[in-house]
């Protein structure tokens, strides 16, 4: 497994080429097939792309990501490739265009190697809800890699690509990053264009990188971030030089520790590991202070009302009429809708559509949906007040390390609770990063989460990089 820095060093010394590097990754993907991390691999196209980058390197015209090989979660469109979202309903759907993040990566001369497996429509926390089979944790194949970006996390962990893109609606980048032991960033809402990201919950969805190092995640964000005319919710906020933010210095930095994130339900080993890292920051001059986010206990409830409501509306487009799966033998339009959807969607997606339909339905809208929107404001206000006194917050990413496959599939609520520390960032729209924080006694990775102010990815990168390299 190599970070981009070591790849660049090898390229610059003439020891290797982009083509060779890509070939090596293709070999690892082939050897690791049983992990089921990929839904599609592009051997010809990626090698072709790599050869083009090699030519540009010789000519001195290569982009900033020349030598980086990226895998893409299968909820993000790559032109002329299938985008299944881990669902049977989009099994044969071929994207007619590139997502903005993909075209920006290509422009920067990154090589796109394939599409990664995921929970269907990004709904899940274990990557067991894929219509194409579950993804296995490389460290212990009887366990889950987290989700929903489990395929992207495993691709990075197992050395199948240098970095990967995932999507995070309630923790879907950070929780799998934590379970597999890699770095995963959910940027600020609006920081990265969602054009070409298949919608799950539009006011929560964010695309972000998974990588072996904070530096690599920062590099990828620098390329994909910024306003895009194709996404009117992408913000017109300047993108700083993220690499310049990695100062290796935390002196005077004010770090908040939200007490609600260290209560009952947190595994002792996870708590100890995170507290050790907090001590490291203290020792190096950071000012550590306890803070309170009083509405923390309401995050999961609020999230599941609002995200399912948005999902039920977004997923109404899968009706079998214009694209996607159409059931055979329907006699009229209504039968076509009902049968296509019922046969095409999996159980968790249907459960969330049903819940979302319920909270939006006449008579319940005020009690659930509107109530949820109000509590969402209280949760965001908690963060805004906390950030008046601190520069970032540190929490565990997940209350536990990876769990066994099958352990939570029949208990949706238990599955939802594994996102208890991550959904708040999506509710508030703030950025969050998960970085590796040692292993538990079973050798399973622990994740530490750093949350930042709106559009201040630079500070959380700085802290993450400091902890990683100190």
């Amino acid at each position, binding site marked *: 497994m190599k970070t981009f820095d070591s790849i660049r060093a090898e390229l610059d010394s003439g020891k290797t080429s982009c083509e060779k590097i890509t070939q090596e990754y293709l070999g690892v993907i082939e050897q690791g097939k049983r992990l089921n991390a990929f839904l599609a691999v592009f051997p010809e196209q990626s090698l072709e792309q790599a050869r083009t980058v090699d030519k540009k390197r010789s000519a001195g015209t290569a982009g900033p990501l020349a030598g980086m090989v990226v895998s893409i979660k299968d909820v993000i469109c790559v032109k002329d490739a299938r985008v299944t979202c881990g669902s049977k309903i989009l099994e044969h759907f071929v994207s*007619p265009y590139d997502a903005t993040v993909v075209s920006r990566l290509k422009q920067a001369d990154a090589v796109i190697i394939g599409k990664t497996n995921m929970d269907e429509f990004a709904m899940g926390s274990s990557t067991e809800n894929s219509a194409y089979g579950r993804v296995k944790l490389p460290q212990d194949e009887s366990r889950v890699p987290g989700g929903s970006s489990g395929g992207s996390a495993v691709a990075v962990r197992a050395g199948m690509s240098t970095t990967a893109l995932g999507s995070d609606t309630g923790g879907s980048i950070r929780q799998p990053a934590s379970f597999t032991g890699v770095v995963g960033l959910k940027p600020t809402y609006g920081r990265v264009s969602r054009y070409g990201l298949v919608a799950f919950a539009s*006011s929560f969805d964010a695309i972000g990188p998974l990588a072996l190092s904070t530096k690599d995640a920062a590099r990828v964000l620098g390329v994909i971030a910024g306003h895009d005319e194709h996404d009117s919710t992408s913000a017109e906020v300047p993108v700083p030089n993220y690499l310049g933010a990695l100062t290796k210095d935390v002196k005077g930095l004010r770090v908040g520790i939200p007490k609600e994130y260290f209560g009952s339900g947190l595994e002792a080993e996870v708590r100890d590991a995170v507290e050790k890292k907090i001590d490291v920051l203290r020792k190096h001059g950071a000012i550590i202070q306890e803070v309170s986010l009083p509405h923390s206990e309401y995050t999961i409830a609020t999230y599941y009302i609002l995200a399912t409501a948005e999902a039920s509306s977004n997923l109404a487009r899968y009706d079998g009429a214009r694209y996607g799966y159409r059931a055979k033998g*329907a006699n*009229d339009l209504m039968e076509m809708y009902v049968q296509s959807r*019922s046969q095409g969607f999996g159980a968790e997606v249907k459960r969330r559509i049903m819940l979302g339909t319920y909270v939006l339905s006449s008579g319940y809208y005020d009690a659930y949906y509107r109530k949820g929107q109000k509590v969402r404001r209280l949760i965001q206000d908690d963060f805004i007040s906390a950030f008046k006194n601190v520069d970032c917050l540190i929490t565990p990413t997940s209350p536990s390390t990876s769990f066994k496959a099958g352990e939570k599939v029949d208990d949706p609520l238990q599955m939802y609770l594994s996102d208890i520390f991550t959904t708040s960032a999506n509710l508030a729209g703030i950025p969050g990063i998960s970085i590796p924080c040692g292993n538990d006694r079973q050798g399973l990775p622990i994740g530490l989460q750093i949350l930042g102010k709106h559009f201040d990815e630079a500070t959380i990168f700085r802290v993450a990089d400091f902890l990683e390299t100190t």
Partner: protein
Amino acid sequence: MSVTLKDVEHMAKLARLEFSEEEKQKFTHQLNDILAYVEQLNKLDTSKVEPLSHVIELSNVFRDDAVKPGLATEEALKNAPAKSDKFFKVPKVIGDK
């Protein structure tokens, strides 16, 4: 508030989904579990709180009304489950009666 089997059938109808009897039972049970959990929001007095529908401040986004290249008809029809000429084809909409 608790969800009945009848509610589940009504939701299914609204969502254009159908379920077996066994699935309906299971959903009724699971939705009740989730809604019981969600009930905790009622502990909060939110009468003076404005609903939050968007997390970052945005005003209207305007663009010039200029013609730009878009998806050609042929491209747009590529993923169609059934098509006829330049159109998506679906089962008959208007009944015989």
